[in-house]
């Protein structure tokens, strides 16, 4: 009888242990998510502060930093530049990356793995090293200023991301669909255009958006290619922040957060939820 009581007690304890562990893990997840979002939330809150120095909680709310922001033509011009560079670099990289990914996944040739490693290597390259390299390179070519050198640099930065995602998408395709198309008379370009491309639509969208975001975020890889009159937005912000830390930056950051959220909404709308989840959590 006593052993039965001990058994039941142990069993109850185990049950309580399970519940405690559940609660602990769930709380940790909640706190962790909060921690992750904390800086962004604080920036948004801070952008509505009524004072220019950093104090929390803000003594009052005001939208003055937003109006101050809109008076700054430098930021607007920088945003436009970042947008242009991002779109151009992403577009070019998508083309280069798609063609390259097709070759990497569907062709067999000696040294393919080496080539793949080479094409993906910019990811492990310290960006500051690349930044200086491009600085010297374009200086020697006499191509300084403007958006072209930066765009060219960004193509190299984002290309590995695109190749990685597209290659993964291509590997998952059912080859019998293409074989059926060929059996029915389609030429190779037709098969690529009509059968392969539509199936990797989600991959194209996600990799394109990721490439754009990565390009938009570049600082040290591009900082030597800008000279004050052609700063990209993050560089403009970075330089501003080295001198002043008033909430104008917070207002700008809030707008950028909204911008990023809009990009995510685009991604969610144009691709299938399950594809996205798979790519995120894979």
């Amino acid at each position: 009888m006593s052993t039965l009581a001990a058994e039941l007690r142990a069993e109850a304890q185990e049950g309580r242990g399970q519940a405690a562990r559940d609660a602990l893990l769930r709380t940790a997840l909640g706190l962790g998510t909060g921690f992750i979002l904390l800086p962004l939330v604080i920036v948004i809150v801070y952008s509505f502060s009524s004072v220019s120095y950093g104090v929390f909680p803000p003594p009052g709310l005001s939208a003055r930093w937003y109006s101050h922001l809109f008076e700054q033509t430098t930021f607007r011009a920088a945003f436009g530049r970042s947008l242009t560079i991002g779109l151009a670099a992403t577009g070019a990289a998508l083309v280069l990356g798609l063609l390259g990914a097709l070759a990497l996944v569907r062709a067999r040739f000696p040294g393919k793995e080496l080539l793949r490693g080479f094409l993906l290597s910019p990811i492990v390259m310290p960006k500051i090293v690349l930044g200086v390299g491009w600085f010297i390179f374009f200086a020697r070519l006499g191509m300084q200023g403007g958006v072209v050198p930066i765009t060219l640099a960004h193509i190299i930065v984002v290309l590995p991301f695109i190749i990685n995602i597209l290659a993964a998408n291509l590997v998952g395709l059912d080859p019998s669909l293409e074989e059926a198309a060929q059996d029915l008379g389609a030429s190779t370009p037709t098969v690529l255009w009509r059968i392969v491309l539509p199936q990797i639509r989600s991959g194209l969208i996600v990799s394109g958006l990721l490439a754009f975001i990565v390009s938009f975020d570049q600082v040290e890889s591009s900082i030597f290619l800008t000279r004050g009159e052609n700063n990209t937005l993050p560089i403009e912000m970075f330089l501003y922040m080295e001198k002043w830390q008033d909430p104008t930056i917070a207002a700008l950051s809030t707008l950028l957060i909204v911008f990023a959220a809009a990009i995510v909404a685009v991604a969610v709308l144009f691709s299938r939820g399950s594809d996205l989840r798979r790519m995120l959590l894979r």
Partner: protein
Amino acid sequence: MDVEIRAITKRFGQVVAVDTVSFVIRGGEFFSLLGPSGCGKTTTLRVIGGFEHADAGEVLIAGRSMGQMPPNRRETNMVFQRLALFPHYTVFDNVAFGLRMKRLPEDDVQRRVGDALDLVQMPGLAGRRISELSGGQQQRVALARALVNRPRVLLLDEPLSSLDLKLRLQMQEELKRLQRELGTTFVYVTHDQGEALAMSDRVAVMDGGHLLQVGPPMEIYEQPRTRFVANFIGDANLIDGIVESIDGEAVMVRAGGHKVSARRQGWERSGQSVTVCVRPERVRIVAAAPGGGGAGSSGGPGDDALRARVEDRAFSGYLVKYRLAIDGLRLHAAVPYVSGTSLYQIGEDVIASWDPQQAVTVANE
């Protein structure tokens, strides 16, 4: 070790996977849960093992209610369908796992693991990695890992389903031998009726979450209680009709334009709609005398006789299977093949008959 399942119900969302199922497993028995995919047999097994908690009912092992007891404290061990061998451990470490969890001294562990591997006929492979083993070998390791703990009840979840036919038959014999040798209660889940009939002391047939029939293999085969069981176990001829009269041990059923009889089960009532079940191997065929009629020319007195036409014929080694058509009805007959005798031709008229005591009525469902 007796296992008693009392009115177990388990739901997953809207789906009722197991619906008020009750039965008793006797200690030392080889007991099978048989049914098609989704019938609830695996869920029932997992409830016994403690991997699922029933929404209603209880599980008693050796008379003690298990309640919410987790698997690591029940006296059961499970052989999983996908084996679940630890890929990062050797064969030895896999088999030793349960013993080490009990913190047994290492000499005991060595000895018992050696014994277990001998038992499943895998001596000398203790140092191998799991990935180096064949499917059959992995099976045995999974068995050893479970049995080394000397469980009172061994649960097996379709362990042979991934093996090829020959290996499967071999392992069936092995399992039966092991069970006899150890005397452990085995609870075995399978969708293969041949497997269940060959290995078990008793079989429980399930469908759609319900328990349909429990009994020794022969009883289930000879006296299926429902249409489903009759169809699922072996082949069956199912003739629907209305009870015309009940006469001693026999029941007369009018089916279509014919009269057939079956062994009385006791629940039949005059005018009730029933199904008569006759196994194909009980159906005897003789050539029909030219001209009409056909009663009484074959078999023994009291046999039912129906005039039929051979529609199809298939030869499968030791049996010849005939498909017979009797206006509106289809009958399958399986006749042992005796070399030298001639077979009936397609289109030929024959008389089909059987001993009424070899046919049973089953519930209509």
